């Protein structure tokens, strides 16, 4: 890993204290977020705030299984996020497909298509686990280890090839948006 300049170190420490997240709520994991955000666990005290659009967000939460159809959208959305960007995989579905491991339409591992910085195991993970993961992510960002966005750039061809392998094409036409 390259040495970070002092500016990058400062920037990274700022980034670690201000995490704006875009939650891509595909599965049951979305249900765990409200308790994490509200009074009981209060995510905001770590500077974590939900954001409405990928342009503004720093991290993307993939809360559950992804099928081919949603994966396309995830990739598209991920590419719309501004660097540096981080991905958090929620639950076993993003790790190995979970209970959908043999489905004809559900992918098995997310990091094969986009770089994932932190996985949260469990089906589903409790808010404590989520906060733990965020702490870990913050640590990683501070140390400059959360370099998924760099890896994605460096190994873009590999990721692209994987995406093509599973999806055919990333961009598709959809009669309801024509």
């Amino acid at each position, binding site marked *: 890993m390259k040495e970070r300049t002092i500016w990058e170190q400062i920037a990274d420490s700022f980034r670690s204290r201000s995490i704006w997240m875009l939650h891509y709520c595909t599965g049951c994991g979305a249900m765990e977020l409200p308790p994490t955000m509200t009074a009981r666990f209060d995510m905001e005290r770590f500077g974590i705030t939900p954001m409405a659009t990928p342009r503004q967000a720093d991290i993307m939460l993939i809360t559950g299984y992804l099928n081919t159809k949603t994966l396309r959208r995830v990739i598209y959305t991920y590419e719309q996020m501004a660097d540096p960007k981080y991905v958090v995989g929620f639950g076993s579905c993003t790790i*190995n497909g979970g209970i959908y491991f043999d489905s004809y339409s559900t992918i098995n591992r997310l990091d*094969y298509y986009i770089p994932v910085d932190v996985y949260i195991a469990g089906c589903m993970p409790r808010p404590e686990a989520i906060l733990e993961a965020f702490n870990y992510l913050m640590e990683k960002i501070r140390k400059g280890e959360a370099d998924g966005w760099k890896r994605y750039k460096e190994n873009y061809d590999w990721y692209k090839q994987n995406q093509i392998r599973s999806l055919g094409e990333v961009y598709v036409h959809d009669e309801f948006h024509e």
Partner: protein
Amino acid sequence: MTSSMSNLVKILEGFNPFVEEIDEKEVKITISSDKVVAVLETLKSNGYSHLSLMTCIDWIDDNQLELVYILFSWKNGGKFLVSTRIDRNDPKFVTVKELWPVARFYEREIHEFFGVEFEGNDDMKPLFLELWDEKPPLRKDFDPRDYSRKKFPDRKYEKDVIKEAKIFRGEING
């Protein structure tokens, strides 16, 4: 079977149906495929105007596909399941989109997942699956696990007892 439904079943007797009572308000009528449209029309004109669902079942052992139309009446809450079987090797049937415009989408779906052709319905573009390149996925002879293995590589999982134990104890972060 409520009285109104049994009256209706009597009307339908001319079509030579096999009637099966599932519930008090739910009747299944199995019928040969050439009489389906006539039965559906009769039912529709007798108040069963809502096509709740249209679906398909793959009877691979009989080498048949079963098409099921579920009709619902808003007047008395009764439900008719009109069922028919068609040949699995040459799955063709007529469209009912003239009776229920919404059937267009059910038929597209069935075409996509079972490969049934509906004569008269030209719009057979894929509805759910994007860029699908295999045989229809809900046919019994389609092996999703195989497909998944081919398309979606899985994580190699090596058992490391010590690491697991450490994670369990909270010494390291998995």
